[in-house]
């Protein structure tokens, strides 16, 4: 069996891969290299001169308590978003994974929110929970909650987590449903005959068999919470009040584009890039080996 025999010409395979390579090179590697270069440069306030400063941007960053606060905040957000959206999606998937009438319809409906763009999600939730305009805010105040995410940092954070988690539920739901359906029915039946009640069946059989899916989604959700929440934060709180909802990605944006500190912004991007590479590395290493049964 010769694998090379498929192509007559040596150039054809390269030509076929070229468009994809071009896209990756132009839209990923080139800006990434630019960011790395930029992170070693320092510009004066008027952008008239640029000097090479080695790691000064990074060192400055690590002296800044606000940066560490943003790191802690981002991890807390990611954790909260991943856990809440994963557990809620799992709950929905378990409920949907039953032979009920109209299951195709509500499964489809549950998947739809994934098609909504993050800024639109932000706007939707703003309208629902805006202190003076929001529908839900009225009920919250009626229940005695002093609801004002525009002033209260914790409430703003909760709002971001809620919107971001809501958006991700559909995606997680889809994977969980597929995962549940790939568990042989007879295994569940065997557990039922073996005397396991539904709750015990879930924790001792279904949950362990879903663990590869759960781990995969955990990494995907953390990456999502790190990066794709930008649109939601930008439309809902713009990182405020104060810096209560400023995540690493949003800080890159505010420091670079609004603050004009391109060097520091670039250094932050490079650090973010390293974080993604590490997360992806973990995923590839462990999803293949440890978590499978």
């Amino acid at each position, binding site marked *: 069996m010769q694998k090379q025999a498929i192509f007559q010409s040596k150039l054809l395979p390269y030509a076929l891969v070229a468009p994809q390579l071009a896209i990756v090179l132009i839209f990923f590697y080139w800006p990434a290299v630019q960011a790395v270069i930029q992170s070693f440069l320092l510009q004066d306030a008027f952008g008239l001169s640029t000097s090479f400063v080695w790691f000064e941007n990074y060192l400055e960053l690590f002296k800044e308590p606000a940066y560490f606060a943003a790191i802690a905040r981002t991890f807390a957000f990611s954790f909260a978003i991943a856990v809440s959206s994963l557990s809620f999606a799992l709950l929905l998937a378990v409920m949907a994974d039953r032979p009920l009438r109209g299951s195709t319809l509500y499964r489809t409906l549950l998947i739809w929110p994934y098609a909504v763009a993050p800024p639109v999600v932000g706007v939707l939730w703003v309208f629902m929970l805006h202190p003076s305009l929001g529908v839900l805010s009225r009920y919250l105040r009626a229940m005695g909650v002093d609801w004002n995410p525009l002033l209260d940092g914790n409430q703003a954070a909760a709002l971001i987590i809620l919107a971001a988690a809501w958006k991700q539920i559909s995606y997680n739901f889809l994977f969980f449903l597929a995962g549940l359906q790939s568990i*042989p029915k*007879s*295994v569940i*039946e*065997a*557990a*039922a*005959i*073996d*005397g*396991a*009640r539904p709750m*015990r069946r879930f924790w*001792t*059989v279904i949950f*362990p*068999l879903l*663990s590869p899916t759960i781990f995969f989604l955990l990494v995907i959700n953390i990456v999502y919470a790190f990066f794709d929440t930008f649109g939601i934060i930008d439309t809902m709180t713009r990182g405020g009040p104060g810096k209560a909802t400023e995540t690493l990605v949003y800080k890159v944006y505010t420091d670079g584009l609004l603050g004009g500190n391109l060097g520091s912004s670039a250094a932050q991007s490079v650090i973010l890039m390293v974080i993604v590479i590490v997360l992806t590395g973990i995923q590839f290493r462990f999803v293949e080996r440890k978590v499978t*049964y």
Partner: protein
Amino acid sequence: MANVTLRSVRKTYPGGFEAIKGVDVDVGDGQFCVLVGPSGCGKSTLLRMVAGLETITGGEIDIGGRVVNQVEPADRDIAMVFQNYALYPHMSVYNNMAYGLRNRGMAEAEIRTRVEEAARVLELSPMLERKPRQLSGGQRQRVAMGRAIVRQPKVFLFDEPLSNLDAKLRIAMRVEIRKLQRRLNTTSIYVTHDQLEAMTLADILVVMNGGQVEQIGNPLEIYQRPATTFVASFIGAPPMNLMPLRSDELTSQIAGADGAGIVGIRPEDFVISGETASGGVALGLTVEAIEHVGAETFVYGSRQREEQGVAANPGELPPGEVIVRVPGATGPAIGERIRAVAPRDKLHLFTADGRKRVAG
């Protein structure tokens, strides 16, 4: 320690399809009952109803003197071996067997004793720490058996447990299952589509077709006196030869065939001979094909007159074709004309619709 009684059990699906059309079976304590039938006859559905995995829409299922229609599978005190084994892939062999005991809150020391005893019996002792994916098909099957026996349930249910194994292993496991069941003396219900498995395992054989019981009884009794043409052609390989009694050629030969419409003759009941069988049947055949099995030879012959056979039964021969079993490896040549003779007492007579056996 329990008998299982089904009283006019029915299963109708919401769409109106009747999968089980009223089945009565009584399995005595410690007996081995085999449900056999072609695919789609409802045998697996019936077993799953006994297990509690399918609802019962009519009649009663009684296990050990208790009607279990509304009882959860966990509380029926049964154990089931599935066709695909249904082992818990993330648990070791030990934990697979211990799972049902832990769910019932048994002490860990007692669990260890029972699992190790079962592992010893099933020759799984060196594999207790392995995961199911590290085992061969036969070993997985034994783990599934082990999971059932450690529980020491009232009833074992088997849903085609051997159909995923290769032919050799299947025969070995068949013998093992029978020995194990004899030793434990636990009431068992076993579903299979393989008539050989059914014949060799059963104390009581239940032949099913189209959601109904065709015949219940001792396997040999069923083989020797099939109640319908369906049973006659389903039990026994190669199948019984079934011929209509429309023509005068056959009818005139058979003594006392009043009310019969179909005659059945097992391949082994024919003798190739020039003599006439008084009151029996003598058929003139042209040999079309020969199968040498070694210890015996099957001769496929067509009847000289273009006779129509009886159609619409599984395992049925093409119309006009007759199988004759000849002991040993020598037989006639292809194209040769032979006379196959069967004595009167080896003939099975059925009514024309095949639903009833005619005495005589």
